[in-house]
């Protein structure tokens, strides 16, 4: 099973990559020991969004389905967590609320995905239908300010946002600050490794084959629609996980984290990082979130202009993504220095080219 951690669908293999991975993993738990608690909380906040980026990377980079609906499922699970946590009361029930809200997002993804995938929608239309659904949810939630909009005791509150839910809690212990940070690190490691195994498994190969040529994959006897739906549900479920964690982190969610320009953010992170690889997405999204947060303190508009410019620059200059490009360049340079023109480099180059088509 662990053999699947490495394979043709993921970059980064061998001793050097895994020793870097372990170094980072060993360094991560030490961070709260010397950083102040505000920084640790901020750090945990960046990590929340990584799931959404990894989900989009799976759908877009591996499955070839460009979904603009990450914030739709983010919102469904985010509001879902709020409603459930308020209705079920705090305490350990919040863990159940987290799980249920992610399931809720996955069910929604299953329904929307069924109609789109079985209808044969792909390419551009897949993007704009998912974006339309996202915007409609944001408009809908935006006009729920009145007291008549409530689910049990949970008021939706329109643009002012929903609040009053408990954060994740076990017994009497609130998972906040550095505890939340450790939970996030653990979740990210689990999700990252699980996705690596998924894309290198037989299922992952079918997903990639479908991206390359759906007709060919179908001729080989696979019902590609089922694999696409599975990819869409997993990818959207990860967006849901981000949403539920976000609500729990701030005990607050508003429609503006669903509509524009929020809906564009996952696209920017993944496009900039390099959609065809999980590791590149992980690293790139983190860097972008860090940069974005730093600039947002001064001006949110300026930060968003920069995000737009990055997206434009990425598609014009490096359609494969900047982080992936730089990473590949470094890896090629390193291995090229060790054994010139070695097979590994050629294999990587071949993989890159086949994605281009």
């Amino acid at each position: 099973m662990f053999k699947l951690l490495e394979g043709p669908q993921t970059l980064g293999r061998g001793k050097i990559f895994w020793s870097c991975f372990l170094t980072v993993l060993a360094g991560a738990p030490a961070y709260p020991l010397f950083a102040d608690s505000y920084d640790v909380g901020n750090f945990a906040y960046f990590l929340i969004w990584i799931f959404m980026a990894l989900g989009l990377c799976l759908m877009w980079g591996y499955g070839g389905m460009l979904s603009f609906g990450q914030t739709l499922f983010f919102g469904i699970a985010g509001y879902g967590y709020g409603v459930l946590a308020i209705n079920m009361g705090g305490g350990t029930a919040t863990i159940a609320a987290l799980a249920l809200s992610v399931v809720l997002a996955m069910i929604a993804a299953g329904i929307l995905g069924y109609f789109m995938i079985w209808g044969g929608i792909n390419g551009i239309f897949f993007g704009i239908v998912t974006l339309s659904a996202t915007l409609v949810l944001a408009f809908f939630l935006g006009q729920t300010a009145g007291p008549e909009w409530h689910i049990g005791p949970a008021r939706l509150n329109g643009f002012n946002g929903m609040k009053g839910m408990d954060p994740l809690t076990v017994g009497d212990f609130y998972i906040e600050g550095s505890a939340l940070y450790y939970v996030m690190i653990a979740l990210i490691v689990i999700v990252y490794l699980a996705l690596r195994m998924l894309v290198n498994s037989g299922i992952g190969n079918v997903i990639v084959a479908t991206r390359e040529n759906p007709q060919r994959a179908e001729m080989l006897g696979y019902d590609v629609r089922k694999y696409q739906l599975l990819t869409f549900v997993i990818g959207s479920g990860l967006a849901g996980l981000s949403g539920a964690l976000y609500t729990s982190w701030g005990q607050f969610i508003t429609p503006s984290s669903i509509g524009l320009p929020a809906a564009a953010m996952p696209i920017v992170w993944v496009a900039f990082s390099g959609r065809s690889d999980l590791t590149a997405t992980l690293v790139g999204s983190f860097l972008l979130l860090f940069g974005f947060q730093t600039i947002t303190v001064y001006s949110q508009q300026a930060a968003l202009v920069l995000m737009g410019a990055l997206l434009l620059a990425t598609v014009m200059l490096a359609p494969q993504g900047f982080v992936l490009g730089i990473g590949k360049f470094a890896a090629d340079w390193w291995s090229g220095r060790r054994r010139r023109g070695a097979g590994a480099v050629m294999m990587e180059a071949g993989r890159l080219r086949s994605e281009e088509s």
Partner: protein
Amino acid sequence: MSAELFSLFYQFADVFAFLILSAAGLAIVFGMMGVINMAHGEFIMCGAYVTVGLVNLGVPLAVAQILAALTAGFIGILVEFLVVRRFYKRPLDSLLATWGLSLIVTQSMLLIVGSAVRGIGTPEGSFAIGGYTFSTYRLVLFGCAVAVLAGLYTIFMKTRFGVIARATMQNAAMAKALGARTGRIYAISFGIGTGLAGLCGALYAPTMTLIPTMGATFVVESFVTVVIGGANVLLGTAPAAVFLAMIRMALNASYGQIIGQIGMLVAVILIIRVLPEGLSSVLVRRGR
């Protein structure tokens, strides 16, 4: 009785005009180049701002609206030349590039002009039929929507440019081999598309609050109309708008705007399950 009937027609005309005016530009660009212009809403916003700016300077409303549409058209040609042109072979990347543009424009506008601009009121004028009063301007909008459809029909079916444009739409390489300057056709079509977006903004500018993010109000309607219309936009857009306007009108009347919008979206999702290529695919089959 006739007053009720007219009231129904009025509500239909209102929604129909909104759908056609917001979708026409997007549909032309999609039909010609297979590109969805994600900055469509920003061209609408551009049209609205130019209109209001000119009216505040003392230009008559109608003149300001025409100038605004032309401005949006020229900016569109510029954008085509600088950005969109590179992406005709990569339609998904064109989506991302124009979305990047849209982010840059919206947020820069927020930075530069701030969130509120003094608007201009809806032109006065109303008339009464039976016990109901109706705003004249809403009917003017309906007239404009019909005029846009008629204008597009004339341009694409009756002029030399239209023949070459349709040839390019069917088979760009062949049209090029026959001597059509496809690059220029694309640029002009993109300009027409963004000009129509500007017109939409110009026409709706008097009826709504001007904010830099106002484009978002139009994009859902324009997206779903294009999706339901299908690949052959000259054939599909108008029937799609009629169909969606019927649904929207029925729901708006009894449940309000937001349920109308949700209902429209649900209808679209159900329809793509059976007609993924949109209404135009059915019409094309019928025509054969």
